[in-house]
């Protein structure tokens, strides 16, 4: 944790400087957090709602931030949890959870007016949607966000070995999905 981040945290916890520090926090991380959430929930409107919820949680709980991780890690953890909670709420039946979430995300992608990808990009996104939740998040963080496994390990509270395995299986499944599509 560098000195500027320590100063930002101190200002966030100070009632006098809190508002200004919070604005800086929003400006600094909003884009990275947005794309992280967007790739989990696909739809812009959902991502916008979730991102607002993430920052509201941060605003309300910044006093309880223990500083045993970086702000970036803390924010990404909240954003990931909020996104997953949002998807859990879309379930109508717990037994059909995975298929239902996959269907919801496919519908979101199909109906999203802010998706400009071509056919190949759409196929890749549909292949990612078919992945189990954890593998999907790991794949997005590694492949698109180019995060280090150590960072991902802190955010997802999962061992580096398990993350590597998840990424490997995710890649394999996407490959199979695209191969089937080509046949």
């Amino acid at each position, binding site marked *: 944790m560098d000195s500027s981040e320590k100063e930002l945290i101190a200002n966030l916890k100070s009632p006098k400087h809190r508002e200004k520090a919070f*604005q800086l926090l*929003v*400006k600094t991380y*909003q*884009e990275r957090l*947005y*794309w992280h959430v*967007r*790739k989990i929930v696909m739809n*812009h409107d959902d991502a*916008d709602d979730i*991102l*607002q919820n993430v*920052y*509201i949680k941060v*605003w309300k709980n910044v006093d309880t931030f223990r500083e045993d991780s970086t702000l970036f890690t803390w924010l990404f953890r909240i954003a990931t949890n909020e996104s997953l909670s949002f998807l859990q709420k879309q379930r109508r039946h717990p037994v059909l959870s995975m298929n239902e979430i996959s269907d919801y995300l496919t519908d979101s992608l199909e109906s*999203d007016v*802010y*998706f*400009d*990808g*071509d056919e*190949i*990009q*759409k196929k*890749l*996104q549909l292949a990612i949607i078919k992945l189990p939740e954890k593998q999907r998040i790991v794949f997005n963080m590694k*492949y*698109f966000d180019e995060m280090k496994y150590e960072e991902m390990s802190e955010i997802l509270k999962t061992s580096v070995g398990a993350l*590597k395995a998840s*990424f*490997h299986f995710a*890649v*394999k499944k*996407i*490959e199979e999905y695209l191969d089937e599509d080509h046949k």
Partner: protein
Amino acid sequence: MKEKDENIENLFGNLKNGQPFRVPEGYFETFAERLQVRIEEEELPQKKRTLFFYLKPALSMAASIALVMLLVYVPIKKFFPSTQGYLTQQKSTIDSVDKVSVLPVPVDLFSYFSEGQFVSAVADMKVIESETLSPDSLGDYISANYTDFDIIANN
């Protein structure tokens, strides 16, 4: 495993560079402002609720007591005017009839009771006045209800 993963990354390399998703124009520029409005909205009801939250139990209790009074005391007062409490109150009202003009709430008995109820209440009062005991009637009552032994034992 690593080699294979890298191959796949290379295979999708051109896809990674092109961002298929976009956002509405000016989204990130206005996000902080919209967030600020949302935070203010979230905090506003909490401030308003605080006072009500603390007063709620007291208000509920006051409302319950008022309701019980309304459902029990008023019907008793209205439909059983000959009870002792009613007579005491009515007597005190009549005793202070000369003070009626200075009471904060005007006492209008005719609008509150039917004519029949009022007449019967007045008739009851007369009965009570006529039943005041004379020394002779008291003596009759004692001799009819007590033996000599009771009277001596009590003295």
